[in-house]
């Protein structure tokens, strides 16, 4: 028997993806590459700010639609 309360697979997948993205972004390789005057690290953080909420909302609405059907 699991010692944890069950979490939806899509939620678990989302959390793991965010963790992996953040881990990769914080590695030193992204600090040295520059694009338009800013380190790639900064652009990756900006991308995280755009995509993490958008994907979370999309996923939530998708699961809600499935339930109502």
């Amino acid at each position: 028997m699991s010692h944890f309360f069950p979490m939806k697979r899509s939620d678990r997948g989302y959390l793991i993806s965010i963790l992996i993205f953040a881990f990769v972004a914080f590695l030193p390789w992204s600090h040295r590459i520059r694009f338009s005057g800013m380190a790639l690290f900064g652009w990756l953080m900006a991308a995280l700010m755009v995509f993490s909420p958008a994907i979370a909302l999309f996923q939530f609405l998708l699961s809600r639609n499935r339930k109502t059907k």
Partner: protein
Amino acid sequence: MTIEHILVLTYLVGCIGIGILASRKVLVSREEYWVAGRRIGTFVNAMAIMAALASGGSIIGVMGLAYGRGIPYTLALFAGAVVGFPLASILIAKPLRNFGKFTITDFLADRYPHPIVRYAVPSIIVVSFTVYIVAQMKAAGITANALLGIPYNQAVTLATVVFIVYVSIGGMVAITWTDVVQGVLMLLVVLGTAVALMFQFGTPTTLIGEAARRAPEIGQVVHMPLASYLGSFVIWAAAISVIPHIVMRVFTAKDARGARLSLNVAMIIYSIMILGAVLVIVPYGKTAFPDLTDADQIFLRVIQREFPPLIRGLAVAAVLAAVMSTTDALLLACSSAISHDLLGHVIEKKFSPKTGSRITVGMTWVIGLVAMILAYSPPKLITEFYSAAIGLLSAALFVPTIAGIWWKKANLSGGIASLVIGAGVYLAVQFTPGTPPLSAILFALPASAVAMAIFGAIGRPNAPEMVEKMAHLHSS
């Protein structure tokens, strides 16, 4: 009196008016006062959540931080806050809304029933939030000083008195209504400024490229040790799930789904606003004003240089809105920590509901005035200052809350140990000389988790009723 003064005065009177209107409804019951009767709709709640998080720090402070410490560092900190929203939406929104009380302390004291938890949690909230409120008051003071010419201390006093009045008499209903107005106002001003600058001077890549040619450090990852970048991200990613003024908004939602959707929508609006500020306004400001001594002044300088009096008046109102929409929620959370969490049992037993409400109102005044006095000697770089205070909350509350909701073996010993060790390690590392800014969380969170695991394993197991109760929060 100029047009800027008239706009700001109208706005302040409007806030007090909302407080008076709301007071007719809320002072009759605790449920109305603390959580607005739990009937706030999704989009109103989303706007209120966004406004509560988007503080003076998010308008004045975010741009000051990016100007002083570089854009990548600032984006790391705010990306943490944005990631914190889906974490909160997945990890706490449904179970806490289903729990159906008023505060994060209610949950923790119910999950880990012990006086240490009942008294330590609100005490940590009061300390952290007083620091947070001081930072907001600085934002209000420097804005009114720079754009309206009001002396700093007078501006702080005026803003403090206005928001204490409408919070103390209007409770959560007043906060929600004013937050929606304030959220719209700050979104319009920040995004309006960013769009106007883009039309005139080019895209974010052009503006950042130009700023980096004059001051290369603005785009580099060199200002701080890597531990500070990671720490600032982790503090805010963890904080959103436990920060009381956001958690209280979860309790105000009509249902668990509404709570989750509100968090998701709020973070999208918040992201757009922060990115507009950091990727457009800051690089333009760095090019135009490369040598500011107080980095937190950058937004105000840009507004002064580029826009006419009407927009300047709106900008002051927007910054005050940002300050007030966060500070009102912080004040309410702080006063709930004292008059509901710490003294709630005494107040309920010894006083009538009406007297209890008056004590709450009095408590709001005391906290607000203490913070106001502290704000007369303001800190530098407000965002870094209040992030350190929020780090204490994350270090102490994140593991006990999340483990309490999701881990069946999280027991009383584990809860107390993770709370005390998380807070203790955070404070010890934070005040060790030479510690990189905001990095203490990187030691405190793992220590708190290890304490939960060890004491959870060796302590007395949970009663089956407790596990059943938690299971019910997930299933209903």
